[in-house]
């Protein structure tokens, strides 16, 4: 077992760990795969318990029966490192594979090691790509994966992709190649359209889950809802709130009507309130509902309006509510009947004022997950703190995401939440004004915090009461929140903040830094002090070559490092690349005309078992 292989802990929402193959087991992989077709000599060397095959078989049968109960990736990875025999059996019994970086290995390596995969979770682009920091067509193509798996895993049931580029052809191949296919989940993906979805809907007869989440879906004009086959479906979850294309409502209504197992339904913006009403009447068994536009299609009716509240009252099982894409606030009270059952509520597309919000939230005693816009103001947050004692996750997004906007939420809201919601585990908070005192208070009141992401939208903003940097606040978070695994920092921050992080942030796996720090020492503190660090994303901070070199002992144990608009030189990056052959060092955005230019615009580096990728676009240079 490698000495420096750190124990993997669970991330907040994405259970991320190192790729299933570490460098040692890669060597084992090669060795064993060659032995299976092999000469007897080799197989004897390979098996520790050799010469008699009988005990081997027994052991392996036992192992197989035991290992199939192991679900956790962490446990499976550990088991696979015990010895070659265990490695082999584990590889045969692993049915769900998680790959945190699609470029960490090639699809062929996956199919060579794991033979019976039913479910794949694959992640592509780094998160900063969502914020326009990476040119389009960078990569993360699903195509090579689907074509390799089409041959290797005909029994594949589930594909869950995040930030991948997926084409309609890929979806067509998927639909054709996997007759038992059950679950397709596409999060933050792009490259496909309604025609691809239509093919999946039509050909995957056992489809249970079709979730399109925050993805860009081209409107090809295809009526994909009508493409679901006739007859009763196995659909349990259908989410298309990100699809910006009109829906054939009659077809949707028919589909919902013949999907008795449907529990989760997320409508898009183009489904009106009246249509929602009709759907609810036909599907009272729903547990998770995305309400679509929540506004009227037509001009206000003079006739009797549908009784929306009654429809909601009939949905006794709804525990998760979202949507409200074009909310007409006067209809918001219709959801009151379900509020007391809600464990999850997403208002983050709705511009709701405190006055409209308070009567609603007062009923949501069971709420655990709450997402909203800052339009609810500090006042709204105080109402949340007063009622939602079980709150675990809070996300407050800016209605007006500009640096100079007014900012209706502040340290007051944060303080109130920290006092009222002691079980808080995860927070994402956009604001314009913050104080160290409020952040410190949260660190003391909410010891269960695992995710703390504070975005003070004005760059380099200090504590607005004391004028000091936000070092003490974030310092308190890393000091007091002993379970913290994910941290995103903002505001005016000096090297001191990073010193705190290096000293106390022992469990941090994901760190997001922007416009922070004074010098290389800051990054050095983190690279030397945070042994669990897996994902590091930095932008516009004064960390240069010296800092980069400080992390060389860590980069093989990390999933990736992103540094953009930092004073790095190409020479240093080349040195790192040379010193670490299994690290792919990408420099993105280099000017083709000027290869001599030493400055590095964006550095994205990650460990890889199969070397540099073969689909590198023009604007990427691999050192």
């Amino acid at each position, binding site marked *: 077992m490698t000495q420096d292989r750190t124990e993997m802990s669970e991330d907040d929402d994405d259970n991320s760990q190192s790729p299933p193959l570490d460098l040692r087991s890669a060597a084992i992989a090669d060795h064993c795969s060659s032995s299976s077709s092999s000469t007897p000599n080799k197989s004897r060397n390979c098996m520790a318990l050799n010469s008699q095959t009988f005990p081997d078989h027994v052991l392996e049968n036992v192992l197989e029966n035991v290992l199939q109960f192991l679900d956790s990736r962490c446990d499976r990875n550990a088991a696979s490192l015990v010895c070659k025999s265990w490695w082999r059996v584990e590889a045969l019994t692993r049915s769900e594979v998680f790959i945190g970086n699609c470029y960490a290995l090639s699809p062929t390596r996956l199919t060579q090691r794991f033979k019976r995969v039913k479910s794949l979770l694959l992640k592509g682009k780094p998160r900063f790509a969502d914020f326009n920091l990476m040119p389009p067509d960078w990569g993360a193509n699903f195509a090579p994966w689907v074509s390799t798996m089409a041959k290797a895993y005909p029994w594949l049931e589930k594909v869950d992709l995040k930030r991948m580029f997926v084409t309609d052809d890929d979806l067509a191949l998927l639909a054709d190649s996997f007759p038992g296919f059950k679950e397709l989940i596409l999060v933050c993906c792009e490259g496909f359209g309604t025609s691809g979805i239509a093919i999946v809907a039509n050909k995957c007869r056992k489809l249970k889950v079709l979730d399109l989440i925050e993805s860009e879906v*081209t*409107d090809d004009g295809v009526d994909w809802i009508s493409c679901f086959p006739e007859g009763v479906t196995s659909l349990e979850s259908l989410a298309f709130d990100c699809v910006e294309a009109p829906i054939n409502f009659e077809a949707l209504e028919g589909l919902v009507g013949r999907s008795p197992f449907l529990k989760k339904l997320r409508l898009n913006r183009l489904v009106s309130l009246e249509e929602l009403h009709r759907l609810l009447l036909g599907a009272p068994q729903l547990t998770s509902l995305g309400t679509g536009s929540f506004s009227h299609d037509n001009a206000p009716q003079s006739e009797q309006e549908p009784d929306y509240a009654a429809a909601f009252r009939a949905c006794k099982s709804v525990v998760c509510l979202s949507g409200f894409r074009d909310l007409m606030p006067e209809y918001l009270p219709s959801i009151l009947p379900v509020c007391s059952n809600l464990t999850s509520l997403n208002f983050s597309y709705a511009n709701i004022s405190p006055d*409209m919000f308070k009567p609603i939230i007062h009923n949501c005693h069971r709420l655990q997950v709450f997402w909203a816009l800052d339009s609810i103001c500090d006042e709204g947050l105080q109402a949340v703190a007063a009622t939602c004692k079980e709150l675990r996750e809070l996300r407050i997004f800016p209605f007006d995401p500009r640096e100079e906007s007014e900012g209706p939420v502040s340290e007051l809201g944060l303080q109130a939440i920290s006092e009222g919601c002691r079980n808080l585990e995860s927070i994402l908070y956009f604001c314009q004004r913050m104080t160290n005192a409020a952040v410190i208070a949260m660190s003391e009141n909410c010891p269960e915090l695992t995710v703390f992401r504070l975005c003070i939208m004005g760059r380099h903003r200090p504590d607005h009461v004391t004028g000091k940097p936000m070092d003490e606040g974030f310092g308190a978070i890393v000091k007091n929140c002993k379970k913290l695994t994910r941290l995103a920092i903002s505001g005016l921050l000096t090297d001191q903040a990073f010193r705190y992080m290096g000293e106390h942030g022992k469990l941090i796996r994901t760190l997001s830094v922007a416009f922070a720090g004074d010098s290389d020492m800051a990054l050095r503190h983190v690279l030397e002090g945070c042994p669990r660090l897996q994902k590091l994303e930095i932008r516009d901070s004064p960390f240069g070559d010296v800092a980069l070199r400080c992390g060389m002992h860590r980069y093989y144990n990390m999933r990736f490092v992103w540094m953009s608009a930092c004073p790095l030189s190409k020479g240093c990056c080349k040195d790192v690349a040379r010193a670490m052959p299994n690290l792919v060092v990408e420099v993105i955005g280099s000017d083709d005309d000027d290869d001599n*230019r030493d400055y590095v615009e964006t550095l994205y580096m990650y460990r890889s078992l199969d070397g540099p990728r073969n689909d590198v676009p023009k604007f990427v240079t691999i050192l």
Partner: protein
Amino acid sequence: MDPRNREICPKLLDLIPQGRKWYQEEKINNTDQEKKLELRLGPPGGDEDQSTMKKINIETRNNMKQQQQQQNIKKESEDKSFHCFNGNHFSPSNKTTYVPQKRTAPGPVVGWPPVRSFRKNLASTSSSKLGNESSHGDQINKSDGGEKQVEPKKEGMFVKINMDSVPIGRKVDLNAYNSYEQLSFAVDKLFRGLLAAQRDISGGEGEEKPIIGLLDGKGEFTLTYEDNEGDKMLVGDVPWQMFVSSVKRLRVIKSSEISSSLTFGCSKQEKKIRH
């Protein structure tokens, strides 16, 4: 090349002094000064404009690097100035129209605040009138943060849009949208009521019907535009960004009249001549 860029280049290089002094000089509220100091980067393989900008970047960044390596401790103002060079990635920061109210920092920066594009258009697409009101005019500063396109965007790009049979035109901000689909929804929103009202007046059905099929020729109406060369074009052929950079005005025409749209330009010019 844009004359404005020419004007900026020499001045920018002139402004890079040797010592630390210029950091203090940075603390000005003068927009001109900021304009000069704003560097832009276009996408790789971009046009001439951007390569010039990049060359400026190289020199200043090398200077910055040297200066930076000399000092470990930076004051806040220095940070700001440093970041004013580094804050711009794949799209030019805003230039002329933005004037910071409270801060001396330069204009909005790409991808900051880190909000995904579909959350950025809330103020424009939301029909709700409560809470903080953000009018279309405020979209000036939204254009280059968090959206998935990478190419440069101008801020607040309002173009006229007219619809057949509706006498009153409207204006639409193309920078508020990322795709043709979003634009076609916006057209529906802008004109649905007006169209219904117009039909009501002329004795037809006054009921509001959604305006759909603008892009595929299947609807009653089709969206067309006039490009920078004065030609009438069907919307949807070229990539979105290319469209945005060449469109001058929009027109929603009856699909049945597509063949006669060839003479549309002529009749428009005739009208102009008559006036």
